[in-house]
């Protein structure tokens, strides 16, 4: 086991770690007391800004910078939304925090609300986490009883209410404006931007949406200081003045074909191979890894040869992945067919596409139908190019959709086919020996069997 001392997960495993008593016995809410007593909201924003903390939800947007986008001297109310709709496949770091250490999340939320002058916070929790719901609600109640929430918190002039809201289980509710729409009681169709939530968000008021793990990081920054936070991770690229670096500890989820799946805390910048070997105990059954998902399936794929990529905010992008995402590493061993992998991925995104933008709604559907046909032994080599064309054309990066769901759907297609094209071609040739070379357009009237 490596020498890194976990901070975010420090309380996990202790008896009754989810209670206020246990949390305070371990030094909890000291950071909040200090902030409320000694710091102004502006100074708190500066503190988080100075730490270069980047959002842990997936996109890695600098948290302090996001807070500064709120309009100055707004009469209010300003809302804080905590995104606990952790729906990226294989991601469960927020769940660990909310189940085992909810007060760490709440402390960060209270500090963040103090900094942004928000007087109301909503925690948008996915439906599938009943234990989180129970424990978070209990923790919130404890906070109200201890005057850590409510009016005039700990004798200061700051008041805050936190509401725990349970979603109805849809991937798109994790998109920040989809979350806001859902919270307002509407269909979770992401909003067009601008205006960004910081200007016009929940109930048309300035809103900040932050991830659960980001809140835990805020707690630790307030308690331990910026220097501690910046001593961990990867410094910013001196050649790129806009790179905020990848500082701090990160919760990595390891799943798939691994000996010790679980959620581990490691400094940002650890390589995928280190994570698998040092934390995950290596690939299971003594097999070799074939590929790994770097951070939730929407981020694409790393081949075994790319396992030395550092898993920081900039690393996966350098080898053609979308980004770090949620840092949920899924290991795929050598026995897995990439055709199966891609088929399952396409099925997920076809199911979860919210259906608002044409390219995503129809593109994910078409891709799934094509993968079904390829799997059924009627694939054509030409289909791979069509899949790539769909992959290259949907998403906010080419600009053809409103939100990033389509990018998430596109990246596994692009990565799987570009990095494992040989395997796909071999599968198609083998399963469809008479028709794999067909290239002519399919007549609309002729019905392809299997659909």
């Amino acid at each position, binding site marked *: 086991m490596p020498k890194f001392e976990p901070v975010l997960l420090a309380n996990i495993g202790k008896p009754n770690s989810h209670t206020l008593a246990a949390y305070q016995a371990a030094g909890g809410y000291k950071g909040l007391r200090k902030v409320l007593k000694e710091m102004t909201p502006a100074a708190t924003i500066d503190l988080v800004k100075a730490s270069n903390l980047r959002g842990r939800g997936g996109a890695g947007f600098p948290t302090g910078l996001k807070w500064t986008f709120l309009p100055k001297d707004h009469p209010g109310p300003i809302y804080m939304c905590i995104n606990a709709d952790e729906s990226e496949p294989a991601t469960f770091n927020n769940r660990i925090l909310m189940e085992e250490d909810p007060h760490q999340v709440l402390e960060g939320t209270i500090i963040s609300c103090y900094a942004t002058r928000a007087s109301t916070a909503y925690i948008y929790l996915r439906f599938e986490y009943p234990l989180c719901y129970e424990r978070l609600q209990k923790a919130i109640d404890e906070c109200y009883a201890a005057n850590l929430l409510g009016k005039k918190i700990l004798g200061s002039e700051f008041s805050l209410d936190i509401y725990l809201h349970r979603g109805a289980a849809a991937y798109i509710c994790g998109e920040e404006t989809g979350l806001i729409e859902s919270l307002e009681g509407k269909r979770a*169709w992401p909003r067009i931007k601008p205006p960004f939530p910081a200007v016009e968000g929940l109930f048309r008021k300035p809103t900040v949406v932050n991830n659960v793990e980001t809140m835990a990081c805020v707690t630790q920054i307030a308690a331990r200081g910026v220097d501690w936070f910046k001593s961990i991770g990867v410094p910013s690229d001196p050649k790129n003045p806009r790179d905020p670096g990848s500082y701090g500890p990160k919760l990595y989820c390891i799943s798939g074909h691994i000996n010790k799946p679980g959620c581990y805390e490691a400094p940002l910048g650890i390589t995928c191979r280190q994570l698998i070997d040092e934390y995950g105990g290596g690939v299971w059954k003594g097999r070799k890894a074939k590929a790994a998902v770097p951070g939730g399936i929407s981020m694409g794929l790393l081949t075994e040869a790319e396992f030395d990529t550092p898993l920081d905010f900039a690393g996966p992008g350098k080898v053609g992945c979308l980004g770090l995402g949620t840092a949920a590493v899924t290991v795929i061993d050598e026995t897995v067919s990439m055709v199966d992998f891609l088929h399952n991925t396409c099925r997920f995104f076809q199911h*979860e596409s919210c*259906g608002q*933008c044409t390219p995503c709604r129809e593109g994910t559907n078409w891709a799934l139908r094509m993968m079904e046909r390829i799997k059924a032994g009627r694939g054509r080599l030409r289909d791979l190019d069509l899949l790539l064309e769909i992959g290259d054309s949907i998403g906010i990066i080419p*600009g053809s*959709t409103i939100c990033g769901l389509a990018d998430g759907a596109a990246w596994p297609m692009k990565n799987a086919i570009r990095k494992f094209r040989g395997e796909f071609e071999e599968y198609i040739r083998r399963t469809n020996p008479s028709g794999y070379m067909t290239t002519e357009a399919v007549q609309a009237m002729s019905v*392809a069997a299997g659909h």
Partner: protein
Amino acid sequence: MGIVIVDGHEVEVGPQERINCIQAAARAGIDIPYYCWHPGLSVVASCRMCLVETGAKHPETGAITMVPKLVPACQTPAKDGTVVVTTSKAVVENRSRVEESLLLDHPIDCPICDKAGECLLQDYHFEHGQSQRRTDIRPFTSRRRELGPTVTLFVDRCVMCSRCVRFAREISGTRELLVINRGSHEEIDVFPGHPLDNKMSGNVVDLCPVGALGDKDFLYKQRVWFMKNQPGVCAGCSTGCSIEICQNQDTVYRLKPRENPFVNKWWMCDEGRYGYHHVHRADRLVEPRRRDGAALVNADWSALPQELDARLKKAGRLAVVISPFLTVEEAYLLAQMAKKYDPQAVLALGPVPVDGKDEKFPGGFTIHAEKCPNRKGVEAVLNKFSERLVTFDQLLTELDSGTIRAAWVAGGYPKPWIDEATAERFDKLDLLIAQDMFDSPLWQRATYQLPGASFAERAGSYVNCNDRLQSFDWAIRPPAGVWIEGHLYWRLLGRKGMYNPRSVLSEVAAEIIYFAAAGGEVSPVGVDLKVNLLAAGNGATTPAAAQATA
């Protein structure tokens, strides 16, 4: 004044104007295709058909910086220095891909689809689509379900633009429509027990860019390419919506709203939309008849003007009832004609049908309780010819006194408008000339029964409740046996040639100050007559004031 550059063309945008790139491009004569955007609805930017490349021109250096991805033209404001590119490879490819995507699950049943011929999916496919189908998804399902009493949904033709959903939320405010399911399983639907049943429901059919929403009234009645669309004005209420009368060979098949920012924007109500059926009712009156003793005998239109002329000359005191369904021009000619035969003739406004209360919708549209198109216009004409406005009830009182010996009643009401008791009060007259579309107790008493025209057959002008005058031409020819009212008055006044509403309107504008603004060209959206009332200071319509302006 701002300058927007669209494909190298410079377009001017006013300083207070808030327009998007689609509208800016239209000014340069460049069409940007779109499905979900509609000027009257909120922007969702979800169809992704209007994606363009945009950039900004630096005000000082003139250097153009482009945004490195496609953006929706509907959502991007066109401001000074905005650069729009609609012809780049990325834009063209995106359009073709969106077209292809929308056709993946589309049944392509154009031969049996009412929308064919005016369908955006069809038009854009020819313009931007691909010549070959690359998918093998089997699209051929054709599910249909009813959304309400007026609208039916062909589920698989839908492209999920959500215009209809937004209409029900933002314009009619009734919120019946919603999107059910998710992703590619999405469908438009209503909740059980809450059908699409509101007074503006027909508009969703016009809004639908494809053939998903079908108008039950129009369904399978006529192919759109056989129809000619004649601009007209709805005669259903005093809103006076600008409409298009879609007809083929003198049969009206449907009415559609015509965009008019000053009257109805893009909408019309169902009452007006489906209110044209009386035009082709089987009991429409089409035989001119003369009472001969107790019997009615068919009269011949060619001889009627002389005959009427002779009878009217010796008729004595004459009363004329001018219906608020007549045009301004007809009312003017009829009043003039009455004064020719009897300078002391009593001119009265016909009954003004009122039904319920004005209804205002969240989108700003109003259905008026006054169910006739031209009360204001007829009143203004009457004010010119008589000292005071005589209402129908006042006329009845005068009839009872027995001084009046002859009456000319121009009806033209699409619904029953006079009861037996009222009609009896016309019994004392020596001569009763009735012009109407449908049988009535008054018609049964008439000495002369003269079939009249419907709104679709008239040409002329209506003045709506907000003093906006709109001129229109006839859309269909009247059935054989019907003379348009204005045509008969024109003859009886001894005017030369064919009845010409335009020349009459010029006369009216010169004679009556209220109509002065209509003296020049009347634009397709009409003219605001109030402009001149303000200029005149007191809104007087006395002959002296009229002559002063003339």
